[in-house]
């Protein structure tokens, strides 16, 4: 495979497209110029920094370093997702555990099945995708959970009044939250190749790989992501819903 080399000049040249985005925003008074600027600067700094970190980790090829980097991603992911789940009391721990479980189970399964070798060059990028997608799914699921518990408080309490446990009373809400968390990835998996080319495949094609190889790797990743997204959404919702109830199976009063 012929490796491709991108110069700093080539990266700088693409700023012309950023200028187009800023111009569109300014012309239509969308007020996004500042956000675009922040996004560009942050992406540059974050990706450059992670590039150096990954460089070091690839050189060391030490699995402990890989584990530490993935743990940091889980921690950062839980913090990020928590801000989307403000209506869920104590959302941080459920998210942290959900991302850790999603990352560990999917990577563990992929390694056990022999899909990838236990090397930094596989584990770091795949782990990043797994944790990132699990984070998005868990954040969407908990966001829905928080809204839905507030909207369905009457139904939940009416069910509790019949002698239902909190788990039984919230089951329809849990089901809807899980669907919300998982549907975006399922939909994009359905349309993949028709409407958009996923990133991994694009990257491999650009790097000169044979299309069949690019497609197979992309399929592996899509299926791995489906697994991680379901584990992440399920774990976060099943842990987080408990925070809405007291030990006496009462729905806590929700903050207004």
């Amino acid at each position, binding site marked *: 495979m012929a490796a491709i080399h991108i110069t700093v000049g080539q990266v700088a040249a693409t700023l012309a497209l950023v200028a187009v985005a800023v111009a569109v925003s300014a012309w239509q008074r969308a007020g996004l110029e500042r956000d675009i600027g922040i996004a560009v600067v942050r992406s540059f700094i974050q990706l450059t920094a992670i590039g150096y970190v990954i460089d070091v980790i690839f050189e060391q090829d030490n699995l402990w370093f890989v584990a530490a980097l993935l743990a940091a991603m889980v921690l950062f992911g839980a913090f990020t997702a928590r801000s989307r789940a403000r209506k869920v009391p104590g959302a941080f721990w459920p998210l942290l555990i959900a991302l850790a479980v999603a990352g560990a189970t999917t990577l563990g399964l992929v390694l056990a099945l022999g899909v990838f070798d236990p090397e930094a060059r596989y584990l770091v990028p795949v782990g990043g995708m797994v944790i990132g997608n699990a984070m998005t799914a868990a954040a969407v699921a908990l966001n829905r959970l928080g809204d839905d518990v507030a909207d369905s408080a*009457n*139904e939940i*309490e*009416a*069910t*509790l*009044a*019949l*002698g*239902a*446990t909190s788990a*039984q009373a919230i089951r*329809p809400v849990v089901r809807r939250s899980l669907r919300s968390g998982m549907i975006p990835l399922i939909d994009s998996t359905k349309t993949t190749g028709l409407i958009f080319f996923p990133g991994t495949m694009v990257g491999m094609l650009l790097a000169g790989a044979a299309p069949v190889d690019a497609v197979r790797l992309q399929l592996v990743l899509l299926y791995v992501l489906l697994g991680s997204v379901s584990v992440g959404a399920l774990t976060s919702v099943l842990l987080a819903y408990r925070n809405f109830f*007291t030990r*006496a*199976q*009462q*729905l806590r009063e929700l903050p207004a």
Partner: protein
Amino acid sequence: MLEELTFGISEGTTCIAGPSGAGKSTLLRLFNRLSDPAGGTVRYRGRDVRDYDVLALRREVGLVPQLPALLNGTVEMNVSFGARLAGEAADVATALRLAGLDETFADRPAGRLSVGEQQRVMLARALALQPKVLLLDEPTAALDERSKAAVERTLLDLRERLSLSVVFVTHELAQAERLADRIVWLERGRLSRGPATVPS
């Protein structure tokens, strides 16, 4: 919200009356532990309600909320829901009849019923658990005059047929007098009068 409240309720039909915001619904929720008081105790048959298994207590002291909140599915599924949770079979036909609905309702989707019919299904699903006490939060507030009169007749009928104690909340004094053996008046979280026996 509720303060310095001390009173007892004996068997029969008791009404908790008072203006909006008096704390009537809050009081009702304490009886089956949907809420717990910040201080003080609520006793049922002489024992602190917190000493009962909460799920068993809620089956014995059933509550029908003010607004209907049925599950997606048929009327039968809704009426048998509480009993199924307890691992028991429900006599759906009897529960429907006691709530003033005929058996043909069993197969109808709950979402397509009128508010009055939904309220009766809520009543039927509480009755299906064969409770000893029934707590009704403004049972007719969401209903028009005709449905209201029908629900009142059903409640009077229940009293005749079952050895069931009923505690219901209303802001309407006339209704309290029509239905209750005794009335407790609440105002701004405090007992303002009662319990007083309604002369029959």
